[in-house]
């Protein structure tokens, strides 16, 4: 499994764009990058997944440079309700389907009014 490094915590004001970077230097060729969001007392929720370049959905954008050794989750114009822990996961669903889904420490984002 790729070794993941992401900031422990970040603070932001409402209305700002937030970028959370995840470092995964030993990412393998077949690995994808996935981000989950977790609110207190709830299970994590899938946000976005990508392999290279840029992926955008209604919630966030994911930027992956050509070397794929890092990735950046971008949350546009955050609100107080975006306060949560954000987890970066890297891996590949093996042909056998036998893939552990392992979470790192995550980044605790606090949005301030």
């Amino acid at each position, binding site marked *: 499994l790729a070794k993941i490094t992401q900031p422990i915590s970040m603070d932001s004001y409402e209305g700002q764009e937030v970028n959370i970077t995840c470092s995964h230097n030993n990412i393998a060729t077949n690995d994808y990058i996935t981000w989950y969001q977790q609110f207190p007392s709830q299970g994590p*929720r899938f946000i976005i997944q990508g392999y290279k370049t840029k992926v955008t959905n209604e919630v966030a954008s994911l930027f992956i440079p050509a070397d794929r050794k890092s990735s950046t989750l971008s949350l546009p114009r955050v609100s107080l309700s975006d306060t949560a822990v954000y987890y970066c996961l890297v891996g590949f669903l093996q042909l056998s389907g036998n893939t552990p*889904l392992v*979470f790192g420490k995550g980044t605790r984002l606090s949005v301030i009014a």
Partner: protein
Amino acid sequence: DAMVIQNPRYQVTQFGKPVTLSCSQTLNHNVMYWYQQKSSQAPKLLFHYYDKDFNNEADTPDNFQSRRPNTSFCFLDIRSPGLGDAAMYLCATSRPFTGTGLGEAFFGQGTRLTVV
């Protein structure tokens, strides 16, 4: 229209008394996961199933067991709960393998276990 349902939401058990947590899914997903999450920590994977193929994480204590009688249901048995087993227990499923990526995992609301 909850897709991954965990029961109960809150469970209180006595020290050493066996307890079972349940998880059901309406998604017909092959893969199911059980996680333990303690306060201010990341979810810790205990084990996962691909269909009936059971995969135990190396550091999961023997005190934790699991059963998956069919695709829809999965159970977590804690044979002799200790005070250190108090935590949120999360069940998740992931969509059938499509050949790309990790797939999207769907989590239940969790069961908060208290050991007294």
